[in-house]
């Protein structure tokens, strides 16, 4: 019954009314009919409504309200300012070197994390797609970092990358670092690598599992044919696997773009003086999300922070769009 589309009501109800015996029965039938129609027509909407309601309350409303606040003077420690600021907050963004520095950092860390992350995930997935001993163990194992609470893992990494007693320096010791230990928090490159490592560690397994799921739907005979034609595993990966799981690749690229540009917890807790939210003494690894938090809750300028949030929203839209386009061009295969 649920598979039939809602039929035009009149021809159906007419014969029923004809065959019906008493008036009461007739009414029951039409009531039932109405229910049936309601079920068919509106039930799907009702059932997806909770998501949209939640989205409206926790997604759309904050977004719009943020837009309103971004046009206001909303400084908690200075209530004397005029209510509306117009586009002053946005104009200020253009000349704010902190903002551009944070944007630069965000993209730097994004590149250092997303690219290796997705490539390694791809390689890992194709390895896991072969016949292995203890297959399930491996597959669940790579998901473990994803399950680890982000704060806990970041705390551990923070100690791992510490200057004086850190494991990272200890491991690098034999490779000529000897004379002076690396201060991972002193310059952009080292701090970016440290933060990107945390991101990669967490998300490689998750992406690999998504790729693996997609790979399992690729028919075996394609690979067999390719093997007969002399294509090695590497060529098979790039010429067959990647084009055939392209939708999933696009999905992970969009997801990691959004996640990468909103990076907050890792850079926040990597800082020894985390409460300042400056991402290093000279903002070496301060991301946009961190700067928004600092401007809003440390400098108490909510209007300006809202303007930054909106700018970030627009930037994510543009970058995700570009990445989608690029990925589908690069991994398309068929033109």
């Amino acid at each position, binding site marked *: *019954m649920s598979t039939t589309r809602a039929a035009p009501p009149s021809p159906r109800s007419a014969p029923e009314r004809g065959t019906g015996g008493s008036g009461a029965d007739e009414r029951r039938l039409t009531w039932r009919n109405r229910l049936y129609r309601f079920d068919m027509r509106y039930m799907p909407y009702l059932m997806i409504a909770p998501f949209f309601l939640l989205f409206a309350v926790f997604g759309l409303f904050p977004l719009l309200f943020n837009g309103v606040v971004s046009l206001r003077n909303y400084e908690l420690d200075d209530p004397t300012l005029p209510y509306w600021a117009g586009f002053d907050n946005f104009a200020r963004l253009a000349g704010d070197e902190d903002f551009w520095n944070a944007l630069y950092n965000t993209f730097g860390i994004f590149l250092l994390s997303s690219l290796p992350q997705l490539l390694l995930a791809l390689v890992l997935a194709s390895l896991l797609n072969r016949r292995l001993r203890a297959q399930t163990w491996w597959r669940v194992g790579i998901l473990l970092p994803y399950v680890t609470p982000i704060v806990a893992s970041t705390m551990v990494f923070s100690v791992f990358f510490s200057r004086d007693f850190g494991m990272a320096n200890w491991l690098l010791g034999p490779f000529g670092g000897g004379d002076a230990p690396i201060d991972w928090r002193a310059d952009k490159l080292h701090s970016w690598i440290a933060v990107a490592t945390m991101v990669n560690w967490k998300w490689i397994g998750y992406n690999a599992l998504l790729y693996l799921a997609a790979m399992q739907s690729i028919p075996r005979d394609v690979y067999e044919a390719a093997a007969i034609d002399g294509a090695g595993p590497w060529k098979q990966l790039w010429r067959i696997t990647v084009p055939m799981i392209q939708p999933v690749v696009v999905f992970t690229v969009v997801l990691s773009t959004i996640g990468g540009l909103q990076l907050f917890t890792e850079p926040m807790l990597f800082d020894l003086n985390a409460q300042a939210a400056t991402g290093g003494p000279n903002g070496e690894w301060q991301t946009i999300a961190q700067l928004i938090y600092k401007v809003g809750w440390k400098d108490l300028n909510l209007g300006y922070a809202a303007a930054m949030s909106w700018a970030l929203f627009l930037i994510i839209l543009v970058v995700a769009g570009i990445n989608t386009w690029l990925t589908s061009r690069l991994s398309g295969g068929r033109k």
Partner: protein
Amino acid sequence: MRRSWSHWARAVAVGAVGLTMVAACSGRSTTGGDDAGSGTVTLKINFWGDFGLQDLKTKYEAEHPNVKIQLNSGEYNAQHEDLQKKLVAGSGAADIAAIDEGYAVQFRGQSDKFVNLLDKGAGSLESKYLPWKWKQTLSADGKTQIGLGTDVGGLAMCYRTDLFAAAGLPTDRDQVSALWPTWDKFIEVGQQYTGKTKKKFIDSGTNLFNPILGQQQVGFYTEQEQLQMDGGPKVAFDYTVKALQADISAKLVSFQADWDKGFTSGAFAVLACPAWMLGHIKETAPGTEGKWDIAAVPGGGGNWGGSFLTIPKQSKNVDEAYKLLEWLVQPEQQIEIFKKVGNLPSQPALYADPAIAEFKNPFFNDAPVGQIFPKMAQGLTPQYQGKKNGPTRVNVENVIRRVENGTLKPDAAWAEAVKEAEKASKS
């Protein structure tokens, strides 16, 4: 037809569950403060760590059967941020909210969101307090007092007697205090120490900068809210850079893993320490018992940290909350708290009380902490804290950290500090 009914029922069930979830998420908790019907009021107190209130709560509730007190301890930063968010939201704050010195300026700037305690008669308590403590939560125009002080940190110099002895320095606390009447002398002692032992003397540059700045007549901002870097900040900054150039700093960041390890490993030999730091040292490095002692801080006085109790205007029981607040800051209760958790009261008259004056700390070689810290707290001159004091301090501290980690040349540091401070003043 039966199938359609069960299908329908299932759909309704799913929809209902979905809607309930929405309702549950958007539902506001309606736990108000006043149980008007029964005549009892519930007062919620938000604070961090241990304020030593547990026994006082029992006592107060016994004396006031109509009052129930709810103690809510949380993490230091989280409590302050929570209070700030509730103030913006307009509801949900506690009836009595503790704030720390470090956040006093931020909340003082929003004095319209707090009950003016002067309206409640707190003005009569002013003479009992250390003048600078009273001023810290007083609004810029002096007409609104948002909080009453509980404890102060004071500031002294904790030092490792074993490390001092190894470096050939005196270990007796009076002799050590005599070593460094000024910060210049302090840095000289540091150079001696480092020269002899090849180990670092102080923990960090910022923990030198802040106490020195606190001793100046004028801090970052004048009372007219003008940033004035050439006065106090310059003095403090120059000493700090001098110390960094003398290479006596272990370049650590307070309350971080490496810093905590430094207590046991002897990464530094002295540490500017307020009264509440003693507990931290004891907890972090229990193995160093008896190896610490406490001397005076160079330059005469100082303070680091200390709390206030405020009443947010959104409280539904302002009168009852004030009654409790006034009771809590009375001498008997403040002495109770000192005995319980060691928080030093901010009312100088209490320093003569035997419970405080005769108190010695066994972990620190029986140092008479009940004498040392009050003296330091009283030696401090009140300093005006500008509205942007917090962000300015953070930016200048960051410049010091850049000099420490070698990414900024010492001779370019002051210009950079001025630039960063100006940026913060306009933030």
